[in-house]
């Protein structure tokens, strides 16, 4: 595209790298695009800012005007939400459950995907399709029997029970995603490791797993978001157990009909939203990259 046609006149001139001239049409299209995108950005961001601002207001201030700034920027609502409404303990529960489940599912998922992708044995295809089936069936169908499976095991309404179920339901996505990743790693490396005397275990943990790091990071991010936002599983099988964040938030909002404290509700929502948002902004490059890895191949 940038081949320069050298004519006699051009040679005599100072050659300046041409910046493409912006035509009138371009400007119009650019302006329209920016306007449309700005409108959508506002639609996304205004509700969030409004929620954040309202989290500092008292209930009467909220009812007086949706726009007025709070009279005082005090943290009373946050203290109330964190301790009285139990958002604090639910937050910790969520972190424990999601962190443990995430570690387990990443290790098990990577192992399972590795075996399915690198070894052919009778039934390997069937197992792969069984995993796919788990991706397409609605979780809802499993909830009623699952309730009794956990009850019989004595794990109903406990965090370990919740962790195991999280692992089970995050497994198909993890395996499916990592399967293609392990498949694309060259076979020569396994052979080289085997020649150097590494056993199967060692080959996996010291050679293959480090090579799969980018894939692992992407899946981990999506699993984290999925599990952190999970609502149906905890309300079904952990209804009377130690609540996780989404559960506590819903319970808190449910009580609001009786004892109206909207300021604290806004604070509770803000506490839920802000930490993940901050983590996202820090890691957004990684995440944008992982979306493309997962889908645009």
């Amino acid at each position: 595209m940038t081949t320069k046609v050298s004519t006699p006149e051009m040679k005599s001139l100072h050659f300046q790298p041409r910046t493409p001239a912006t035509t009138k049409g371009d400007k119009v299209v650019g302006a329209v695009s920016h306007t449309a995108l700005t409108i959508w950005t506002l639609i996304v961001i205004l509700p969030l800012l409004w929620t954040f601002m309202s989290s500092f207001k008292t209930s009467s201030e909220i009812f007086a005007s949706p726009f007025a700034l709070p009279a005082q920027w005090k943290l009373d609502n946050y203290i109330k939400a964190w301790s009285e409404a139990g958002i604090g303990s639910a937050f910790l529960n969520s972190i424990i459950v999601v962190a443990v489940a995430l570690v387990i599912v990443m290790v098990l998922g990577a192992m399972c995907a590795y075996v399915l992708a690198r070894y052919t044995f009778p039934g390997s295809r069937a197992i792969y399709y069984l995993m796919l089936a788990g991706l397409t069936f609605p979780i809802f169908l499993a909830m009623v029997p699952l309730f009794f499976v956990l009850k019989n095991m004595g794990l109903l309404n406990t965090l370990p029970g919740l962790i195991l179920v999280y692992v089970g339901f995050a497994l198909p996505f993890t395996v499916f995603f990592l399967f293609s990743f392990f498949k694309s790693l060259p076979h020569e490396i396994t052979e080289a490791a085997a020649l150097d005397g590494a056993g199967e275990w060692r080959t996996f943990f010291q050679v293959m797993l480090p090579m799969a790091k980018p894939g692992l990071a992407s899946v981990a991010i999506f699993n984290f978001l999925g599990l952190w936002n999970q609502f149906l599983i905890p309300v079904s099988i952990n209804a009377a157990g130690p609540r996780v964040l989404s559960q506590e938030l819903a319970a808190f909002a449910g009580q609001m009909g009786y004892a109206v404290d909207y300021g604290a509700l806004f604070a509770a929502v803000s506490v839920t939203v802000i930490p993940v948002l901050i983590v996202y902004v820090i890691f957004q490059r990684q995440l944008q990259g992982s979306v493309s890895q997962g889908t645009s191949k």
Partner: protein
Amino acid sequence: MTSVKTQQSRNDDGLAAVVPATAAPQVIKRRRKPLTWDKVSFFAVFLGLPLAIYLLFVIWPFIQAFGYSLTDWSGFSPNQNFIGLENYVKIFTDDIFMKAMGNNILLVIFLPIITIILSLVLASLVTVGGSSKGQIKGLRNSSFYRVVSFFPYTIPAVAIGIMWGQIYDPSGGLLNGILTGLGLDQFKDFAWLGDKNTAMIATMFVIVWGFVGFYMVLFVAGIKGIPAELFEAARIDGAGRFRTAVSITIPLIRDNIQTAYIYMGILALDAFVYMAALNSGGGPDNSTLVMAQQLFFTAFSKGQFGLASAMGVVLAIATLIFSGLVFVVNRLTGGDKDVSL
């Protein structure tokens, strides 16, 4: 060996799509090695452990659900009688469940289309909205839009529901505040979620709000994967922006669009969290009641586990029918033509 290798690497390209169309098993003949402790323990742990958890907590409940759906089990009594398809008959003659199913169908029709069109438009604006001269490039500062649009995807659905419940609040909410501020006084104290004509639309908007950013990022990634030469060639041939989008971009990210359509449809058939957070009782005149809510209520409040399982089976079958339809429609409209790169 070389021929095997090229086959292998070509095969890998198709695997990242949701259902690998070209994932024919590649059997690579290897010399059989004697079984060692290393190998046996490796397979037992690597395959056995994940599969055990998966079978116990995912597959086994799914299978059981089909069984329960044929009984009158209440969950707490030990006896369950086999009653054949009676539960299904009950479901399909139950006006409330049929209403819920109708609402789900409404969601399945509108949610994916609105979300995908909106995110596709925004993604195109971001990627090819730039100058029509010189190198093909996106809009300036486009990464800002992309990052902000993704925000809702990081927020738990419950929080989204609660937040929008407050925004739609008749007296202190943001929406009516803005509308009355603009001089539209008829919206003072208008209950968006309390009026049966607007409850469903308002709810749909919340779900669209939550997902447009995610699919926009997905499509942006897809469009960036298209080589710039193709756009340049189209431009040299005289194609304008709109023509390029319709004839080049959309056919080349067709697989992404299909994936998005199926995910969004499955979500529309569920939609439990949003409905429960915005209108836990099913909304005015059950106008936002969905099958999943009815299932949850039947199981955990009424204790009719047999009936609830049958509802789950109906939901699962609806999901499968929907996914199948999307595949068939995509095929029929020319999706099987090889346009992939």
